[in-house]
C-alpha cells in the first residue's frame, strides 16, 4: 500500500525553508513566523494522521524512484512509516512545532534578515530530520544524517560574526564527519554483504542468516557472519558516537551551545542527537547478530553516561550543564538499545525529548530574563521572578532526576533493569557487560540527580546574587506556553513506561514490539519478570543524591562545595576544565595534523617536488644547453680549430687502428 502523502512530512518543512530562504527578508517577521511554524505544525498533523494508521497495525510506505544506480547497486527514494519511525516523527514535528513557536518570541531581537534566516535553517533541519527518520534505506537515512549535520552547523554558527561561534559550528560538523566516516564504512560493509541498502530487504536477508556461517566470497571471505556484521555495526556505531555525542566524539556537543537556545533544545537535546539511538534501533536486527557490537554500544553508553555526568558537576554555565546532561542521557539510551532493551532506549529518547526540551527552553527563558547571562553563579532567587519558568523547570528537573512518578523514572529504570537482567546473545558471551552498565548507569543517575538539583537550586532558589537577577522578569506567554506543554508531557509520558505487571504496563514495549521482533528473536532476548528492588534502588538513589544536591546548594550544607574545592583544588580545576579532553585532542590530533601538512608542503611540495625535481629538471636542461652553447658561439676560427683537431684525431685513430 503506497502512501505518497508521507512525502509531505518532508516536503512541507523543506518548502518552508525555501520560501523563507528566498523571500523571507521581504515577507516581514510575522509572515516568516507564520510560514515557519505553520509548515511544522502541518507536518505534525500529517504525522499524527499517519500515526493513527500505525496504531492499528499498518505499516505505511511511500516507495520512490531510483535516486541513482550503477552496476548492480541501486539506491532508491522510499519512505517507511512504522511504529518506530512514527514515534520519532511525532516527537520531531511535535516538539519541533512547539520550539518553532517559542522561537517566534525568543528570536524577536533579530533583524528581518536574521529572523528569516533562523526559520529557514530550522525548517531545513526538520526536513532533514524527517528524511533521516522516514527513509527506508541506509542511503536516505544517511542523507538526512548529513542534512541535520548541515542544519546544526548553520544554526550553531548562526551568529557567525562571533568567531568563536562560527568555530563551534565547524567543530560540530567536522567531528560529525569523523563519525560519518564510520557510518560509510559500515554502509559499504553492508553493501558487500547484502548488496542492498533497503531496510526491508536487509531484514529479510538477515532473518535467514546464522551468525556462525562462514562467508565464502567478497571482502569478508573466511569471516563468520557475526564477525562481518560486527565490523559493519561498529562502523555504524562510530557514526552514532559522532551524531549522538558519545565517547570519544562527544566534544562537539557542549560547544554546540553557542547556537541560539531553541536550537539547543530542538537539535542538540530533543531530536538530532538521538539519531544515533534511532539508527541502532532501526538496524537492531543487524546488531542482534553481532553480540560484540551490542556489548560495545552498551559499554560506551554507560561510560559516557557517567563521564559526562561527572563533568556536569563542576560546570557553571546553565547551558553547559544541560549539554553534559544530554550527553549523559544519550549514554543511557545507548545502554538500552545496546543491551537488547531496544524499546527502553527509544522510550527514554521520547521522554528525554520532552523534559530536556523543556529544560533548555526554560534556560532560554532564564537567559532572556537575565539579559543573556548564562552563569548560574550570577543567578539565584529567580523562582519568584519567573514563576512559570521555574515551575516547569522544576517538573522537568524532577523528571530527569528520576523521581517517582515522573516519566524519566520509568524510562531510566526500564533501561537499567534491562541492562542488569539482560538475558540474550550478548549477555551469554559477555556476562559482565550488563551488570557493569547497571553499576555505571546507577552512579550516573545519582550524579544526574545531584547536578540537576544543584542547577535548579543555584538558579531559582535562594536570594538573587546579582543586580541582573534582582531585575529578572518572566518571559512572554508565547515562550512559557510551550514550556507548560512540554512539562505536562514529561509527566504524562509516564504511562508509556509503567512496569509490566501494572494495568497499562509496558505499553510502549508492546507497541514497538513488532519493530524489534526480529532482533528479539535473533538475539534470544528473554523477558525478565519485573522485580521490585531495582525500582526501589533507583528511587532511593534519585532522592538521596537529589536531596544532597539541594542541601549543598540551597540548604544546610551550603559550605561544603567551597570546602571541597579548597581541599582538592587540582581535582576541582580538572573537572571545571572538562577533564581537558579538548586539549588532549588538540595535542594528539589537530596540532600534529597541521604540522604534518606544513612539513609536507614545505619539504615535499615546495622543495622536493617543485625545487628539486621539476625545476631541477629544467636547470639540468639549462646546464646542458649552457655546455652546448659554448660549442656554438659562432666563432668561425674556433670551429675551424675544433675541426682540424678532430680531423687529426680521426686520422690518427684510423691509421693506428687500420694500419698493419
Amino acid at each position: 500500500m503506497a502512501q505518497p502523502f508521507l512525502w509531505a512530512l518532508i516536503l512541507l518543512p523543506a518548502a518552508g525553508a525555501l520560501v523563507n530562504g528566498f523571500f523571507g527578508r521581504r515577507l516581514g517577521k510575522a509572515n516568516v513566523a507564520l510560514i515557519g511554524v505553520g509548515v511544522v505544525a502541518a507536518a505534525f498533523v500529517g504525522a499524527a494522521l499517519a500515526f493513527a494508521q500505525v496504531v492499528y497495525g499498518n505499516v505505511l510506505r511511500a516507495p520512490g524512484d531510483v535516486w541513482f544506480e550503477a552496476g548492480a547497486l541501486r539506491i532508491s527514494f522510499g519512505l517507511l512509516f512504522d511504529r518506530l519511525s512514527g514515534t520519532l516523527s511525532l516527537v520531531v514535528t511535535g516538539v519541533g512545532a512547539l520550539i518553532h513557536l517559542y522561537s517566534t518570541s525568543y528570536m524577536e531581537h533579530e533583524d528581518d534578515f536574521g529572523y528569516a534566516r533562523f526559520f529557514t535553517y530550522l525548517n531545513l533541519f526538520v526536513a532533514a530530520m524527517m528524511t533521516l527518520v522516514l527513509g527506508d534505506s541506509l542511503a536516505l537515512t544517511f542523507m538526512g544524517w548529513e542534512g541535520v549535520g548541515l542544519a546544526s552547523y548553520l544554526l550553531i554558527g548562526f551568529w557567525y560574526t562571533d568567531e568563536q561561534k562560527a568555530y563551534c559550528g565547524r567543530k560540530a560538523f567536522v567531528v560529525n564527519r569523523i563519525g560519518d566516516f564510520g557510518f560509510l564504512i559500515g554502509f559499504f560493509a553492508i553493501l558487500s554483504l547484502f548488496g542492498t541498502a533497503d531496510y526491508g530487504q536487509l531484514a529479510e536477508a538477515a532473518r535467514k542468516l546464522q551468525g556462525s556461517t562462514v562467508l565464502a566470497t567478497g571482502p569478508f571471505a573466511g569471516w563468520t557472519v557475526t564477525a562481518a556484521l560486527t565490523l559493519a555495526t561498529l562502523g555504524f556505531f562510530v557514526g552514532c558516537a559522532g551524531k549522538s555525542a558519545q565517547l570519544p566524539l562527544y566534544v562537539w556537543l557542549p560547544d554546540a551551545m553557542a547556537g541560539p537556545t531553541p536550537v539547543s533544545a530542538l537539535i542538540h537535546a530533543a531530536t538530532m542527537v538521538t539519531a544515533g539511538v534511532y539508527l541502532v534501533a532501526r538496524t537492531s536486527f543487524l546488531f542482534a547478530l553481532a553480540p560484540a557490537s551490542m556489548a560495545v554500544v552498551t559499554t560506551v553508553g554507560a561510560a559516557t553516561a557517567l563521564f559526562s555526568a561527572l563533568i556536569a558537576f563542576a560546570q557553571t554555565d546553565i547551558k553547559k550543564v544541560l549539554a553534559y546532561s544530554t550527553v549523559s542521557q544519550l549514554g543511557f539510551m545507548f545502554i538500552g538499545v545496546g543491551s537488547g532493551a531496544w524499546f527502553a532506549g527509544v522510550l527514554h529518547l521520547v521522554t528525554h525529548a520532552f523534559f530536556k526540551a523543556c529544560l533548555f527552553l526554560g534556560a532560554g527563558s532564564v537567559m532572556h530574563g537575565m539579559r543573556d547571562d548564562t552563569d548560574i553563579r550570577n543567578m539565584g532567587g529567580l523562582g519568584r521572578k519567573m514563576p512559570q519558568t521555574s515551575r516547569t523547570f522544576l517538573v522537568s528537573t524532577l523528571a530527569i532526576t528520576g523521581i517517582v512518578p515522573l516519566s524519566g523514572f520509568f524510562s531510566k529504570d526500564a533501561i537499567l533493569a534491562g541492562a542488569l537482567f539482560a538475558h540474550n546473545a550478548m549477555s551469554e558471551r559477555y556476562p559482565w557487560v550488563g551488570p557493569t552498565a547497571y553499576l555505571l548507569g546507577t552512579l550516573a543517575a545519582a550524579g544526574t540527580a545531584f547536578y540537576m538539583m544543584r542547577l535548579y537550586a543555584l538558579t531559582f532558589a535562594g536570594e538573587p546574587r546579582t543586580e541582573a537577577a534582582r531585575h529578572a522578569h518572566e518571559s512572554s506567554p508565547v515562550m512559557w506556553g510551550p514550556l507548560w506543554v512540554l512539562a505536562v508531557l514529561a509527566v504524562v509520558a509516564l504511562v508509556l513506561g509503567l512496569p509490566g505487571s501494572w494495568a497499562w504496563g509496558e505499553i510502549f514495549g508492546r507497541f514497538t514490539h513488532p519493530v524489534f521482533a526480529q532482533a528479539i528473536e535473533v538475539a534470544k532476548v528473554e523477558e525478565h519478570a519485573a522485580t521490585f528492588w531495582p525500582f526501589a534502588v533507583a528511587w532511593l538513589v534519585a532522592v538521596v543524591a537529589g536531596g544532597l544536591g539541594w542541601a549543598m546548594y540551597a540548604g544546610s550544607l551550603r559550605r561544603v562545595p567551597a570546602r571541597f574545592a579548597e581541599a582538592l583544588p587540582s581535582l576541582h580545576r580538572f573537572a571545571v576544565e572538562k577533564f581537558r579532553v579538548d586539549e588532549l585532542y588538540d595535542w594528539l590530533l589537530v596540532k600534529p595534523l597541521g604540522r604534518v601538512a606544513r612539513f609536507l608542503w614545505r619539504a615535499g611540495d615546495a622543495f622536493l617536488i617543485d625545487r628539486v625535481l621539476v625545476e631541477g629538471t629544467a636547470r639540468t636542461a639549462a646546464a646542458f644547453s649552457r655546455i652546448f652553447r659554448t660549442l656554438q658561439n659562432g666563432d668561425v676560427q674556433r670551429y675551424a680549430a675544433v675541426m682540424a683537431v678532430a680531423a687529426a684525431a680521426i686520422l690518427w685513430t684510423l691509421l693506428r687502428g687500420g694500419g698493419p
Partner: protein
Amino acid sequence: MLLSLVIFLPLLGALVAAFLPAAEPGQHRGWALFVSLLTFAVSLALWFGFDARPGAAEFQFETRLPWIASAGIGYHIGLDGVALLLVMLTTALTPVVILSAFTVGDRVKEFMIALLVLETAMVGTFAALDLVLFYVFWEGILIPMYLLIGVWGSQNRLYATVKFFIYTFAASVLMLIAIIYVYMHDGGSFDYLAARSALQISAPAQRWLFLAFALAFAVKVPMFPLHTWLPDAHTEAPTAGSVILAGVLLKMGTFGFFRYAMPLFPDAALHFRPAVAALAVVGILYGALMCLVQQDMKRLVAYSSVSHLGFVMLGLMALTAEGLTGGVYQMLNHGVSTGALFLLVGMLYERRHTRLISEYGGIARQVPWIATAFVVVTLSSIGLPGTNGFVGEFLILAGTWLGRMPGTQVLAAIAATGVVLGAVYMLWLVERVFFGTIRNDENRHLPDLSLREALVIAPMVVAIVVMGLSPQPFLAPARPAVDRLVARLQEADARLRAADPSRPPSVGTTPPAVAASPRAAEGALAALPAGGSR
C-alpha cells in the same frame, strides 16, 4: 555532421571575431557569448539524440573522412556516453565562463577569441576517434591556454605559464611517440577503433606504451607527484582560465585513461593498476593536507582539485561499474563545483584584488548572496548528500570497496578519510573568508552579486542541486561505455588467468556475500511485525 558543427562552431565564431574591430569590446563580449550559447544549443541535439540503450552503437554521431590517407590519418569523430557528458560539460560551461569574463578589460578581442578556440579544441579532444586528430586537439589546447595565463594572468604569470606549457607538453610528446609505435603495430592506421582491435604487441611493449600514455594523462589530471604545475597555473590564471582549467582540462587526463590508456593496453593497465590506485589515494590525502596550509584562496582550491581528481582516478582504477560510473560522474561534479568555486573566488578578487584569505573575514553580512552560493558550492565540494558531489564520491568509494583488487577495501577506507579532511579545509576556508568580524575596513562596503554575476553563478548552483537529487539522466549515458570498459578489462583478466590459474579474478564487482532476494523482499518489513500488527 552535427558533432562537427559543435566542434567547429566556436572556431568559426572566432574567425568572424577576428574581423570585428578590436576597439569595440562590447561587441566581442556579446558575440562570444552568442556563439557559445549557440554551440550549447546545438550540442543539446547531441544530448537528446544520444541513444543510451544497451544495444545501441558504441560511438554515435560518427563521421569518418580521409584526411592524410597516405599516412593512415583520418578525420574520425564520434561520441560514446562518457565523451558526450564531457562535451556537454564543455559547451555548458563555456557560456558561463564567457559571461563571467565580461569584466576583462584588456585585449577583449583576443581574450574572447582564445576562449572560443579553446572550446573547439576541448570538444575536439573528447570527440576525436583518430589518434593523430586526438593529439592535434590535445596539444591545440595548450596554445590558447598558454596565452590566457601568460597574457591575462596575474603577477607571476610567466613562470606559471611556461611551467604549465613545458610540463604538459613534455609528457605529451611521449604520448606522441607511443602513438607512432601503435601505428607501426596495428596494420598502419591511426584510427582508434583499428588500434583497439588490431594492436599486436608484446607484453613489455604494452607496458611501456601504457606508461607513455599514462604519463601524459597523469600530468594533466594531475596525479601526485606530477601536480605542482597546477597550483601555479590556477593561481596566476585569470578567472576564466582557472574555471576552464579546473572544469574541463583536468578531465582530459582522466578521460584519457578511460578512453585510451586502459582499453588500448588492458593487460598493462591491470599490471599498473595497484600503483596508480595507490597514487590516487595518496593524491586524495596529500591534496587535502596541502589545502590545510594554504593562505591563497585559489591555491587552496587548486590543491582541492588534486584531492578530488584523486577520487576520480581511484574510481577508474576500481574497475567496477560502480566505481567507474562514480569516477565519470565526479568528473562532471568537479567541473561544476570547482568551476563554481573559482568563479566565486574570482568575484571576490574583482572586488578586493587579493586572493589572500587573511585579507577577508566576516564579509557574509556584506555579501550574503555570495556567501550563500559559496556555502552551497562548498557543500557540493565536500560531498553532502543532496548535492552532486555525494553521488560521485559515494559511487567511487562503494565501487572501490566492492572491487576485486587485493586490498581494495583498505584503499577505500583510507580514501574515505579524505571526506573528513575535505570538510575540514573547505569549512575552514568558508569560516576565514565569510565569518567572524570584519577586520579589514576595505571589506566594509563590498557590493553583493550583480545581475550578471547572479546569472553566472545561478546555473552552477541549480546544477549542483539537480545533479544531486536526480543524477540518473547523467549517469544513464555513461552506462554502456562503462560496461564495455569493464567487459574489456575482464577479458584481459580472463586471459591472464588462463595463463596463470592461481591468479584470482581482479576486475568487476564482487557479488554480495549473502544474497538479499531483491524484489521478493518488497513486503519484507511487512513481515517484520511478527507480533501480529498486520
